[in-house]
């Protein structure tokens, strides 16, 4: 189309219309002069500003709220954690002997926490301290359970999750035991503590802040 508009008129049509197409430069000069004469008498910047497209906003104008920069939490969320498998023990790490030093450390920690476990110390005070203690590395034994096949499993506590204990037994097996409906026993020197799993369903970090009610007897 553009070629049709800018091409020169063929001579027969020129004779018909009574015009003569002017060659190249003369046509250009004519075009420039014509445009200059038809423009209004204004300065160059004003012409430029008229040419600028200015949109007129008719309705409500909402100011663009600049959102503050979203501070991302340091660390990983659960999805990423699961992908990275940070809390999963690899099979070559699942050896009972590897966790014995942890158990020794834990024993020291408990003895320090209870100000030395003397045979004469009051069980009540020790109990209060143990409620807030951390049990990673303790040797747990299931003493009573509504499901009889859990009874008797013994091992070192590797991981304490919200509803579950992960224990590694002497046969190098990682067992996951739900806390609910079970009673666990922890041996510390001469003391034996029984933990009622149903009341212990908290993450170990949250347990230090929780107040436990005093109950007479607890039935599974």
């Amino acid at each position, binding site marked *: 189309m553009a070629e049709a508009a800018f091409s020169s008129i063929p001579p027969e049509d020129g004779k018909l219309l009574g015009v003569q197409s002017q060659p190249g430069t003369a046509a250009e000069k004519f075009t420039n002069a014509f445009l200059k004469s038809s423009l209004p008498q204004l300065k160059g910047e004003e012409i430029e500003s008229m040419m600028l497209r200015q949109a007129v906003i008719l309705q409500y104008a909402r100011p663009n709220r600049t959102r503050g920069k979203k501070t991302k939490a340091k660390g990983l969320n659960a999805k990423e954690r699961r992908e990275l498998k940070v809390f999963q023990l690899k099979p070559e790490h699942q050896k009972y002997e590897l966790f014995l030093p942890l158990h020794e450390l834990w024993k020291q920690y408990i003895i320090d926490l209870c100000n030395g476990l003397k045979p004469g110390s009051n069980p009540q005070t020790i109990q209060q301290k143990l409620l807030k203690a951390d049990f990673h590395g303790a040797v747990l034994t299931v*003493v*009573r*359970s*509504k499901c*009889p*096949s859990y*009874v*008797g499993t013994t091992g070192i506590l590797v991981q304490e999750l919200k509803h579950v204990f992960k224990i590694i037994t002497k046969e190098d097996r990682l067992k996951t035991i739900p806390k609910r409906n079970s009673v666990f026993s922890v041996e510390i020197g001469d003391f034996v503590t029984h933990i009622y799993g149903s009341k212990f369903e908290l993450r170990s970090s949250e347990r230090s802040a929780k107040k436990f009610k005093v109950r007479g007897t607890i039935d*599974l």
Partner: protein
Amino acid sequence: MSPELEQCPRSLLVCEKGNFKNEKSRHESQALKHSFNCRISLLIPECGRLPVMLEKVLSNFSSYFHVQDFPVSTFLEEKWLDAVKKGGFYALSSKTRIDEDNVVAVLPSGQLILSLDKDTYEQLGLEGRPSQYSHRKTVRHIVTVDLKSLVLGTKKYQRVLLCLKERVPLKTDFLFTAAGGAVSLLDLLSKQLYEECRPALHCRTLQDLLCPSLIPSDLKGESGSVTPTQFLEWLGAVSLSISCDNQATSFLSTYACPEPQSSVSQALLCTVTGLISPQDVCKLLTEIRRYLDEPKLTSWVSLTVHGCADSPVSWGSAEHGFHKGGENFYNFVCFQNQDYWLHMATGAKDACPP
């Protein structure tokens, strides 16, 4: 009707009739299935003294052994497992109540049945199923261990042994009786403190008794004879020596003997108490049949075998419980033409008799 009577716990009564000479007669299999019998009572109308042959059979009943503080883990020892494979024996814990304590029983089929309360089951660590007769909350659990399939040294054997020895060392008084096989209980119990007991026999002659007349072919009591419930009620009244005269002056009982009735000048009531094996019951039944073959005045003989109220099983391995009564008994009525009636009755917490 008073409200207490309306809320009676249910009881089941199964009646069947047959002939001893019939090959397909189930009398022996029914009697052998009922494992733990604690009392037998025999009623012979028109008889003054116990016949000689019957007395012989009754006094030849095998003795039963009472052992104190027998640990249950002993059943897993080698010689006991061999005994189970050879023929078996009956063992039942004594003085334990089925609805309160832990009850242990061993059947000749090799099953060790533990009926445990909640605490013991949670601490023991052996898999079991909850009792069939629990209402909302399961309080009772039944653990069955098949002693015949336990091989020494396997993991399963070790676990069972560990549980019974260390986790909860169950120990109760036991009653043992032989199952008629080649098992000698004296050998097995040689290391324990046992007491050999003989089943106790009591005989009583009743004078001028009113008996219902029974027609052998009419079990249900439709054509003029007594219904099974009426008959069993009368039988119970006789064994408890409740007067059936329907005297208006009697303060204790106005019970009347069911019609049609006849007066009998004398009747013999024999009771044997103790743990009696089913094999002995079958021998007694055979002797009663022989006794009835001889011509005599006695037209029928009734043999009632009561099961232990505290046994965990009634017939076979059907679970048994104690609600307001732990009755599970069966009653044979033998007639002169070798016909018999068999009534089997159970209480509330029981399965239907076979």
